[in-house]
């Protein structure tokens, strides 16, 4: 048997070689805002562990470099990622001087490049395996459980992002729930308003162009400006409409953020409802009409189920977009993970930025995978039913 090179493997091996031998693995800083000093893998880990990690990386990179069975590549990427995740925690404990609470250890460029390289390998394997929707959600759950276990076990406690977390554990969960409430709440509101609006636009052609144009123009207003512009009208509502202030409607804070996210969410929901309903095969509609179904029965029994995957695609776009946009709500006092991002930028404390950015990316990523799986399930179900 002759060994042949894998094209992607060449890229992965090159990145890992550079990251493992030339780039810093961890950064040591005397306190949270001074510039750091780089530490290589050998310097950052206790005696035997450093060479062991290097051996694992070299082995996994070799598996990637040559054409090897998918199962082997899957195992190699999983083992490499697990070793990196475990040992960066060990480096945190090892590099922190005993009893020193100011020193900060954070993962450096070498660590991130290695994570990138082996995630690439894992992504390639998972793409080639062509997993079913359920298996993809399963893989996500396994990854989430593994990260959760690492967090609970305390093996990352000496890394600086978790030190930032321990300093603000209460506000982290408060801002987190605000973030999720903002993203999901505005999505729910957009679906409640957008679906009927989309159905209306589908039936009344004269309305369609007008509504879609207005929604398109709303999308062009930069998010920070839209957030800001809603401060005045909502402030007016709060002071002039009795009971509004008691509901939590105020000029600054969550209310303008909620309304802005809602407005941004409307276009994908309405547009996809219109496209989905327009794509319902004429034959299906004719058959339903021939069976004597009323317009209402046709809408809920035929058109809606057939358009559902397209509408779900709109909802996926909105959810991922809202989770990202909700970070900007922090600029107008609306809370969310953006609070940590902007505080961190202000204090040039990058660990604090990460504390806001990492959960946001994780949430958006999980939402995308889960909704993609749901879309595929409904789409295949539909194909089976119509076949």
């Amino acid at each position, binding site marked *: 048997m002759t060994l042949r090179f894998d094209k992607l493997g060449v890229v992965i091996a090159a990145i890992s070689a550079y990251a493992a031998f030339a780039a810093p693995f961890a950064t040591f800083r005397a306190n949270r805002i001074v510039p750091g000093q780089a530490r290589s893998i050998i310097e950052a880990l206790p005696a035997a562990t450093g060479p062991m990690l290097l051996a694992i990386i070299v082995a996994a990179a070799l598996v990637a470099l040559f054409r090897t069975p998918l199962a082997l590549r899957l195992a190699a990427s999983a083992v490499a990622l697990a070793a990196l995740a475990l040992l960066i925690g060990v480096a945190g404990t090892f590099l922190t001087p005993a009893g020193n609470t100011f020193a900060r250890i954070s993962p450096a460029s070498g660590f991130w490049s290695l994570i990138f390289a082996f995630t690439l390998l894992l992504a390639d394997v998972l793409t080639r395996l062509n997993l079913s929707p359920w298996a993809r959600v399963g893989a996500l759950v396994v990854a989430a459980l593994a990260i959760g276990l690492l967090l609970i076990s305390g093996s990352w406690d000496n890394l600086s992002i978790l030190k930032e977390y321990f300093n603000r554990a209460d506000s982290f969960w408060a801002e987190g729930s605000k973030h999720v409430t903002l993203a999901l709440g505005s999505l729910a509101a957009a679906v409640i308003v957008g679906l009927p609006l989309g159905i209306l636009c589908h039936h009344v052609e004269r309305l369609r162009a007008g509504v879609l144009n207005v929604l398109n123009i709303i999308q062009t207003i930069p998010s*920070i*400006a839209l957030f800001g512009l809603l401060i005045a009208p909502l402030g007016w509502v709060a002071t002039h409409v009795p009971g509004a202030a008691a509901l939590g409607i105020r000029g600054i804070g969550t209310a303008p953020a909620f309304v802005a996210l809602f407005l941004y969410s409307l276009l994908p929901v309405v547009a996809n409802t219109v496209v989905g309903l327009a794509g319902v095969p004429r034959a299906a509609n004719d058959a339903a009409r021939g069976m004597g179904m009323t317009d209402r029965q046709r809408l809920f029994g035929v058109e809606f189920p057939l358009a559902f995957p397209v509408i779900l695609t709109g909802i996926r776009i909105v959810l991922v977009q809202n989770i990202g946009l909700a970070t900007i709500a922090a600029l107008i006092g609306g809370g969310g993970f953006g609070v940590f991002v902007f505080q961190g930028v202000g204090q040039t404390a990058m660990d604090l930025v990460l504390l806001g950015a990492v959960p946001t990316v994780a949430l958006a990523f999980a939402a995308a995978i889960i909704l993609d799986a749901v879309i595929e399930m409904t789409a295949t179900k539909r194909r089976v039913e119509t076949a």
Partner: protein
Amino acid sequence: MKPWLPSLLRLALVVLLVAFVTNPGWFEPLLKPLTENNAPVIYNQGSLLTLTLLHLRTVLIATVAATIVAVALAILVTRPAGAEFLPLSRSLVNIGQTFPPVAVLALAVPAVGFGERPTLIALFLYGLLPIFENALTGLTTLPANVVEAARGAGMTGWQRLIKVELPLSAPIILGGIRLSVVISLATATIGSTVAARTLGEVIIAGLLSNNLAFVLQGGLIVAALAVLIYDGLSAIERYTARRMGREAE
């Protein structure tokens, strides 16, 4: 609607926009009611014209770079030599879209410092995705008979790419560029949170000093730019689509 009405509206918008960024003082009475305690009505820490031009320059640089890289990548993965990267590149594009712009911006700061550069990186990464996706669609949905005819005429792979495949995909690729420019125009304003000089500066100054006039003028200039550029690119797209006999998306 009368056929000349849209053109007239567009022209009016251009005139208004140019008048506003060159002579914002003329519009002071209109914005005056939005300020309190005699706060300045027109942004006074830099000229609106300069900021608009800087804003456009940032978007232009990022979009040109994103277009070159995205189209090159799409060409690479649609050649036989790069075909095995096609599924992976699709999933990477999907994953990339889940990164919020604020996070990209904030995380780029430690690597390249404050200012224009983190903004360019974030806009570049964000701009890549729609262009790549459209270029891929364009290059993979070419009419098979045309490609066969080009092959039959004895064209080499390179000639086919330059003379047949790319011109035929141009309208769809342009559609991607249009999406990417509109997203970038709005996203560039967030760059001002890391000290890039864009129109976001005006909006953020307004948010910080509770001056609604600032927020409104910054937001409206960006929105007007986006609408005009969107319109202009759509027109070019329709023109190329007609020439190529291919309907844009």
